[in-house]
């Protein structure tokens, strides 16, 4: 139903798509797989009319078409569920679906007609949602249903989903897959973009792998593919999806959290009485869907957010009311989930960012001024050791890739030889290669005797790194399990608020 032939798209200095061929047949899920910057989103934006290709043909049902804008794509039966939802929060579900469509009662709206159709479609494809609910009241999973309904309401025969599961709980993702299967059974085609290899394997009929804008592999027999083989195609070399690590040898508890209560940005309690112990030489993984108090918990431990109750003790020193500087001094280091907002300053250079935390250290000063030579030596050493790919030390950080910025932050925080390390979403949006490296560093840090906390929404990451796993839901720890006892299904259930049934 859709065929792309020799698509070329150039941006200044980058060849984003280099003679890409791609096709979708009715009734199949065709996955587009690739690292960040491999050209997946560019290709889909061309299909959806947001970009114009520099060369190549787009064919729909065998006929060449020109897609200048999203409405052209919609008219051709192509729908897209964006990674960032295109919904108006203050409008109802029905209004969002009706938006931009010709009303049968112009100039008045025909929302009751739209609502009926929404319920009909919802029933048929397993997308239950109240048409009269206002969007801001809906959960993320429900909002995604609204996006899919928007496309179905516009009679989309081909649906593009850009990393749809990034925001979902495992259960919600399963529901989504059921919906997608109902759609393919109905003869519709799906383009699925994801880098979660497990679900790609579970869902896809065909897989096309992009690297540096080029098609490097096509998998027609998905049953024969493995996560490792796909990762190798994406990266171009063998990768370890889980770091090699020995059995943990936990020592004494270094981080003790007791009855911790923390308020969120809106004054609502986000962490509601959390008790945790993290020992020297172990990695505690905190699994949970984002927005369940993880950020507030991490910031409280890092000294960036003052708890409203409870204690945080590191090596016997009570820190819950300590300043960020005192928390640093106690050896607590934090890798923030928002790289560019809290982890690094984009306009600053690589060297400046490496010094961001320790610029007051005496090593870097001489007669009250910065000692440029000592700084350069320190930074050069870190850049080499942590494999940060940068043209120079005075390159602004914002021109580096996400993976390299993250490596820089990891270098900065680990070089301080912390006692307690809190790493929040350490590899989100990071290439597989860089993720592999960061994971290895976190394990090495554990083996050095640091108490490591890894907070992640990615269950695979938690399972790969953690020695013990705590599941957080609505500001409370649902349960803590040993890695060896953990399985994906029960963890997924707990992440959605379900309590462990029997153990």
């Amino acid at each position: 139903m859709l065929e792309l032939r020799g698509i070329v798209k150039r941006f200044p200095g980058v060849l984003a798509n280099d003679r890409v061929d791609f096709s979708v047949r009715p009734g199949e899920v065709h996955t587009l797989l690739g690292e960040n910057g491999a050209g997946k989103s560019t290709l889909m934006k061309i299909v959806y009319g947001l970009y114009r290709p520099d060369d190549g043909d787009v064919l729909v049902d065998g006929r060449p078409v020109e897609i200048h804008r999203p409405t052209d794509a919609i008219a051709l039966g192509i729908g897209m569920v964006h990674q960032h939802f295109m919904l108006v929060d203050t409008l109802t579900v029905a209004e969002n679906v009706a938006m931009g469509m010709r009303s049968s009662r112009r100039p008045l709206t025909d929302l009751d007609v739209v609502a009926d159709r929404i319920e009909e479609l919802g029933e048929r494809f397993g997308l239950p949602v109240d048409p009269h609910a206002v969007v801001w009241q809906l959960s993320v999973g429900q909002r995604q249903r609204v996006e899919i309904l928007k496309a179905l309401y516009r009679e989309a025969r081909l649906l593009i989903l850009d990393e749809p599961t990034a925001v979902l709980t495992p259960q919600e993702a399963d529901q989504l897959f059921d919906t997608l299967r109902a759609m393919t059974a109905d003869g519709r085609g799906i383009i699925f973009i994801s880098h979660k290899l497990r679900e790609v394997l579970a869902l896809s009929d065909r897989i096309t792998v992009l690297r540096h804008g080029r098609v490097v592999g096509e998998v027609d027999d998905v049953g024969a593919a493995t996560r490792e083989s796909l990762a190798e195609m994406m990266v171009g070399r063998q990768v370890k999806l889980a770091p090699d690590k020995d059995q943990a040898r936990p020592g004494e508890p270094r981080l003790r959290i007791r009855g911790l209560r923390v308020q969120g940005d809106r004054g609502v309690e986000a962490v509601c009485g959390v008790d945790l112990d993290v020992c020297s030489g172990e990695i505690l993984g905190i699994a949970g869907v984002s927005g369940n108090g993880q950020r507030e918990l991490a910031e409280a431990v890092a000294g960036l957010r003052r708890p409203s109750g409870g204690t945080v003790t590191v090596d016997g020193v009570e820190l819950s009311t300590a300043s960020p500087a005192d928390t640093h001094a106690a050896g607590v280091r934090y890798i923030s989930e928002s790289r560019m907002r809290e982890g690094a300053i984009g306009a600053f250079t690589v060297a400046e960012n490496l010094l961001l935390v320790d610029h007051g250290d005496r090593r870097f000063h001489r007669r009250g001024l910065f000692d440029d030579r000592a700084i350069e030596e320190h930074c050069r050493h870190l850049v080499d050791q942590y494999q940060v790919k940068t043209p120079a030390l005075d390159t602004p950080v914002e021109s580096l890739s996400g993976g390299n910025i993250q490596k820089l932050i990891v270098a900065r925080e680990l070089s301080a030889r912390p006692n307690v390390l809190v790493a929040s979403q350490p590899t989100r949006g990071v290439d597989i290669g860089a993720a592999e490296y960061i994971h290895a560093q976190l394990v090495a840090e554990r083996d050095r005797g640091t108490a490591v906390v890894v907070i992640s929404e990615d269950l695979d990451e938690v399972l790969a790194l953690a020695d013990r796993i705590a599941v957080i839901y609505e500001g409370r720890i649902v349960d803590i399990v040993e890695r060896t006892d953990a399985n994906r299904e029960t963890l997924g259930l707990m992440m959605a608020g379900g309590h462990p049934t029997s153990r």
Partner: protein
Amino acid sequence: MSQFFSQAILIAAVAGGIRLAVPLLLAALGETYGQRSGVLNLGVDGVMLLGAFGGYFTVLELGNVWLGLVVGVGIGAILGLATAFISVTLGAEQGISGIGVYLFGLGMSDLLFQKLVGTPLPIESFPKVPLPGLSSIPVVGEMLFQHSLVVYAAFLLVPISTFVINRTTFGMNIRAVGENPEAADSVGISVARVRYATVLIGGILAGVAGAALAIDLGIFQQNLTNAQGFIAVALVYFGAWRPLGVMGGALLYGMVNSIVLQLKTLGIIPRSWSDIAAMAPAVITILALVLVARRFRQPAALAKPFVRET
């Protein structure tokens, strides 16, 4: 103080308050359309001033109050389009460009007045049209139903605007564009077209508001509006971007103004105090604003130009 509560004066105060609220109501309703679609137009007062001069001059020359209003519409439309061009097409910083429009209107209206008229001559005002039946209700009839057609029309615009914003596809598009222009754009709604339309409506209503003010007072002078255009912008916040709330704010301002005027006329407020008393409406409006408006959320894309990524 007791004489203030005599029936005749009370009726005059309320009726006067309603009359004084009309220019504000018109301008603020127009601004509501713009802000709901994400355009903050701070130039309202400038448009009002030019509309006021245009209306005044037309009536002075041609002697027809309705033609005066039509000229107000025309001037408002031209300035509305100019504002839309600046803030939508050029994507200018809306707070600053609005002040530019205001200063242009302030200076231009005075210049034209000095060149074309010079000495203020009184003009004819709108004829009163008592509504049959309703106007003969005692007290209430005199307060509410013995006004000019402009007054009735202005208040009629309140339910009409509520209906347009909430029940029509145009209104739905306005709300969508004001909250999330990217989302609206992605389903084929032209953000620029919607915003041009709302800013044009805002300009027309501001022009009419100015003309109505000048013709109602029967006079023009420099800075006739006395910053009422800015109060109108504030009233949109006060009214939480809803026509009914905006009307409440306009009536509050009109009533306080009218009462102060009555108290001054009666000598209850001493002459030496009159300047301070003249500030009362603005002060009370601002206080009310601070107390009321913070409870509501403004349109998420307010004052943010929309540029489609390429």
